[in-house]
């Protein structure tokens, strides 16, 4: 039997292609162009080859920002994923409290990023902020504007507050999709709570947790607004993550070539991690 191809459907894709071309492909091409040139403004460019890439790859500043970025992403993933699963497990499976819990969980996700940064900035102020003042009353020498450890603590706490809900909602959706028959079989076998979690709930949540890890990795890897509003990358460079460093290079120092080379390296890393997660997710789905 011969197959009839109807290629008219491709015309439906053109609007999306045009949109992607304008908001992704053309800017990306421009960044690639900038990454091999030097400019002093007025659209005057001088070809430099791969000089900016060499500088970025050898730059201790870039290495430090990259290390901080991975440290931050690893830290929040290690906290948010187990915490999100634990909260999802503790949430009621039926009854009127389900809606209350879901709304409470969704609230932090509705707050704009810059507002979250401003809120936590005010709350963490050592003299008048609720968090800062309380910690100081407890005898802890807390000052996120001066001490790097305190700045990190505040940023991690802020991110956990803002984004654990996403993991909770995804994990809860995964838990709700498990048929009761699994739990009944586990009860008949006399399975412990841990066995039910290890052999029923965790495998069944695998897909949503992969999505949660992917989303949280990408978001935290590209985080900019919240730490920028909260600490501005300081004290010193203690919380200068890749995106903050990139904006400093591009807008603060007008080093367009270096910033473009950094952007391309940043983009490639993000693309690689996306691909790895996507592949894992698809493999999980096939299995």
């Amino acid at each position, binding site marked *: 039997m011969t197959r009839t191809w109807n290629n008219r459907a491709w015309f439906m894709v053109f609007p999306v292609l045009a949109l992607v071309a304008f908001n992704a492909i053309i800017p990306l091409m*421009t960044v690639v162009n900038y990454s091999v040139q030097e400019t002093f403004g007025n659209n005057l460019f001088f070809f430099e080859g791969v000089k900016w890439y060499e500088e970025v790859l050898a730059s201790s500043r870039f290495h430090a920002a990259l290390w901080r970025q991975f440290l931050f992403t690893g830290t929040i993933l290690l906290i948010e994923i187990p915490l999100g699963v634990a909260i999802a497990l503790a949430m009621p499976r039926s009854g009127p409290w389900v809606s209350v819990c879901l709304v409470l969980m969704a609230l932090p996700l509705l707050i704009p990023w810059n507002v979250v940064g401003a809120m936590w900035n005010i709350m963490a102020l050592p003299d008048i902020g609720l968090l800062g003042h309380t910690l100081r009353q407890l005898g802890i020498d807390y000052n996120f504007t001066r001490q790097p450890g305190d700045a990190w603590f505040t940023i991690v706490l802020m991110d956990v507050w803002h984004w654990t809900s996403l993991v909770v909602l995804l994990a809860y959706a995964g838990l709700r999709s498990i048929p009761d028959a699994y739990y009944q079989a586990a009860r008949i076998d006399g399975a412990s709570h841990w066995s039910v979690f290890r052999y029923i709930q965790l495998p069944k949540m695998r897909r949503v947790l992969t999505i949660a890890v992917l989303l949280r990795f990408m978001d935290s890897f590209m985080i900019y607004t919240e730490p920028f509003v909260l600490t501005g990358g300081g004290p010193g460079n203690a919380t200068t993550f890749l995106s903050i460093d990139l904006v400093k290079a591009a807008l603060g120092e007008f080093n367009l070539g270096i910033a473009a080379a950094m952007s391309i390296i940043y983009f490639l890393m993000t693309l690689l991690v996306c691909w790895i997660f996507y592949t894992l997710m698809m493999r999980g789905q096939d299995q």
Partner: protein
Amino acid sequence: MDIAWMAWTWQTAAFFAFIAVLLAGMTLWELVSPGGAPRHGVLGLDTTRGDRLFISLLGSAFIHLGWLALIDTPLWGASIVSVLFALAVFRWV
């Protein structure tokens, strides 16, 4: 239309033209032999030839960056390694 702000150079234009030619070639290949030639490769992944091109291109980018970081210019060595890598990916992955 003034596109001076895009700061084109012949080198970057050639690079993007190369990518466009690759994509056009893949489209032709798909028309000649539809289905994407899916297979289970040595990495334990199910890949189509589009996946294999993506892996080759992404891998090539990292090979060039690694070469710059560890060995320095010129980059011809990295390009040769990338071609060999792409051939290996299309053969075994």
